[in-house]
C-alpha cells in the first residue's frame, strides 16, 4: 500500500509528536492526583475527546468492517451498540464523582461496597480484561503496520507499544488525555475523508445492487445470529465500560459538573463510526477488491480508493486509534495495580514518590508482558477480544446495582460474577462467541437480584467516601516529596 520508507517516516513523525506532547503535558503532573487523574479538573473538550478516542480502538476500525462483511447491515448496527456503554455510563460517572470525590479506581468502589473477597475477584477479571484488550491492540498494531507499510509484524508491534509506554511514563493521564484530543480529531477526519472518497468512487446504488445480487444475506432484516450479536455487543460494551478502570479513572478525572455531558457527547460521537467503517467494507465487492483477511478489509478498500494518499490517511487513523487505547489501558491498569494491589495490599504506608516509581515499573512491566504475549499471532482479533466477554458481562449488574441499590450485597456480587463468567464461557464454547456476554450478563443479573431479595444489605453510601470528601487536603498531601 505504501512503501516501507514512507511507513517509517510516518511512524517516526507520529511517535516523536506523541512523546514530545507527552513530555509537555506531563510537566503538569506534580502529584499522584495529577499523574493518575490529571488533577481531577479535566474540561468538557478534553473529557469528551478522551472518552471518544479511547473507545475508538483498532477493533472499531478493523472489527466493525469485519462485522459488516460477515453479518451485513446488522453487523454494523451491532457494533454501533457499543456506544450505549458510554451513554449509559454517563449518569454513573456523575454518581461516582459525587459518592467518591476522593476515589482513584474502580477497585476502590468494589472494595468499599462489597468487601475484600469480591474485590479480589473483580481485580482478577478487570486486570485479565485490561490485559486482553492490550494484547489485541498490540497484535493489531503489528498486523496493520505490516499490511499497510510492509513493516515487519514484530517491529511495528514493538514500536507502537514502546511509544505509548514512553509518553504514558512521562506524563501519566495528562499526557494520555492531551494526546487523545488530537488523536480523536485525526481519527474522525480520516474516516470522513475515506468515506467520502469511497462514495466518489462508487455510488451507493451500485453498492446496494451488488450486495443484493451477490451477497443478499448481508441485507437481510432477519438474521438470528446477527441479531444475537446486537445484544451481545451491547452487553459486552456495557460491561467493558461499567467495570473498567479506564472509564472510572476518567469519571474521577473530568470536572464533576461536565462528566455526564462528556460521556453523552462521546457516546453520540462514537455511534456513527462503526457504521461509516462498516460501509467502507461493504463497498469492497462493488469495487472488485479481493479480501483475503476480513479484519484487513478497511485498509484494503481505503488504499484501493485513495491510492497512496489513502494509505497514509489510514495509517494515521489506525496509529491514532491504537495509541489512544494502548496509552489509556497502560495508565488505567497500572493505576489499578498500584493503588489496589501495591498500596492497599502490600505497602499502605508508601509515600507518593515511591508510588510514582512503582507505577512506572508497572507500566513498563505491563508493556513488556504484552509484548511477549504478542510475539506470536494468537488468533483473529475477535477471538482474542471476545474471550474476555463473559467475565466482563458478568460485572455489569454488581457495578450498576452497587451504585444505586442499597440492598445489593457482596453475596450477589461475587456469585453473580462467578456464575455469570462460567455460564458465559460455557456459552462461548458451546453456542458461539456472540452469546457469551449475553449469557454472562443475564446469569449475573439473576444472581444479583435474587441475592438482594433474600439477603438484603442496607448500605450506607457515606462509606464510599473513603477520604470524607477532603479531596483538597488529600490532594495537597499527594505532591511528590
Amino acid at each position, binding site marked *: 500500500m505504501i512503501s516501507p520508507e514512507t511507513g517509517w517516516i510516518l511512524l517516526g513523525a507520529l511517535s516523536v509528536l506523541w512523546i514530545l506532547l507527552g513530555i509537555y503535558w506531563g510537566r503538569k503532573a506534580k502529584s499522584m492526583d495529577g499523574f493518575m487523574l490529571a488533577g481531577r479538573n479535566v474540561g468538557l473538550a478534553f473529557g469528551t475527546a478522551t472518552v471518544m478516542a479511547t473507545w475508538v480502538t483498532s477493533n472499531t476500525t478493523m472489527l466493525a468492517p469485519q462485522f459488516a462483511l460477515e453479518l451485513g*447491515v446488522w453487523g454494523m448496527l451491532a457494533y454501533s451498540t457499543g456506544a450505549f456503554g458510554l451513554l449509559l455510563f454517563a449518569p454513573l460517572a456523575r454518581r461516582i464523582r459525587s459518592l467518591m470525590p476522593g476515589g482513584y479506581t474502580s477497585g476502590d468502589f468494589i472494595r468499599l461496597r462489597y468487601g475484600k473477597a469480591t474485590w479480589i475477584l473483580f481485580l482478577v477479571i478487570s486486570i485479565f480484561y485490561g490485559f486482553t484488550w492490550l494484547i489485541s491492540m498490540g497484535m493489531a498494531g503489528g498486523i496493520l503496520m505490516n499490511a499497510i507499510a510492509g513493516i515487519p509484524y514484530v517491529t511495528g508491534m514493538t514500536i507502537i507499544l514502546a511509544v505509548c509506554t514512553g509518553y504514558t511514563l512521562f506524563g501519566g493521564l495528562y499526557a494520555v488525555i492531551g494526546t487523545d484530543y488530537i488523536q480523536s480529531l485525526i481519527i474522525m477526519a480520516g474516516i470522513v475523508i475515506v468515506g467520502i472518497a469511497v462514495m466518489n468512487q462508487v455510488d451507493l446504488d451500485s453498492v446496494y445492487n451488488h450486495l443484493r445480487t451477490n451477497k443478499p444475506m448481508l441485507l437481510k432484516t432477519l438474521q438470528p445470529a446477527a441479531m444475537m450479536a446486537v445484544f451481545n455487543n451491547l452487553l459486552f460494551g456495557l460491561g467493558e465500560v461499567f467495570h473498567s478502570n479506564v472509564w472510572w479513572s476518567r469519571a474521577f478525572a473530568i470536572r464533576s459538573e461536565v462528566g455526564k455531558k462528556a460521556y453523552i457527547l462521546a457516546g453520540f460521537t462514537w455511534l456513527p463510526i462503526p457504521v461509516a467503517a462498516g460501509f467502507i467494507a461493504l463497498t469492497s465487492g462493488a469495487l472488485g477488491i479481493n479480501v483475503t483477511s476480513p479484519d484487513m478489509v478497511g485498509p484494503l478498500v481505503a488504499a484501493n480508493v485513495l491510492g497512496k494518499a489513502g494509505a497514509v490517511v489510514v495509517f494515521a487513523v489506525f496509529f491514532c486509534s491504537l495509541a489512544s487505547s494502548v496509552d489509556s489501558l497502560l495508565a488505567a491498569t497500572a493505576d489499578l495495580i498500584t493503588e489496589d494491589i501495591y498500596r492497599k495490599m502490600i505497602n499502605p504506608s508508601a509515600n507518593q514518590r515511591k508510588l510514582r516509581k512503582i507505577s512506572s515499573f508497572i507500566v513498563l512491566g505491563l508493556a513488556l508482558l504484552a509484548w511477549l504475549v504478542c510475539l506470536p499471532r494468537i488468533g483473529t482479533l475477535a477471538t482474542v477480544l471476545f474471550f474476555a466477554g463473559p467475565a466482563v458481562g458478568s460485572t455489569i449488574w454488581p457495578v450498576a446495582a452497587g451504585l444505586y441499590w442499597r440492598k445489593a450485597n457482596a453475596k450477589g456480587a461475587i456469585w453473580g460474577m462467578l456464575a455469570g463468567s462460567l455460564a458465559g464461557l460455557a456459552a462461548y464454547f458451546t453456542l458461539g462467541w456472540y452469546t457469551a456476554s449475553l449469557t454472562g450478563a443475564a446469569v449475573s443479573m439473576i444472581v444479583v437480584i435474587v441475592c438482594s431479595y433474600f439477603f438484603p444489605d442496607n448500605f450506607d453510601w457515606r462509606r464510599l467516601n473513603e477520604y470524607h470528601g477532603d479531596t483538597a487536603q488529600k490532594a495537597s498531601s499527594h505532591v511528590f516529596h
Partner: protein
Amino acid sequence: MYFTESFVSVMIIFALIVISVAVIVLLALLITDIKNKKLW
C-alpha cells in the same frame, strides 16, 4: 425481507454527517474551554 436501499443510504450519509459535525463541536468546545480557562 431486506433492508431497503434508501434505509442503507440514509444511515451511511447520516453517519458521515454526524462525524463531521462532531469534529466541529470538539474544536468549538476546545476554544470555549481555553477562553473560560477550563481546559484542565
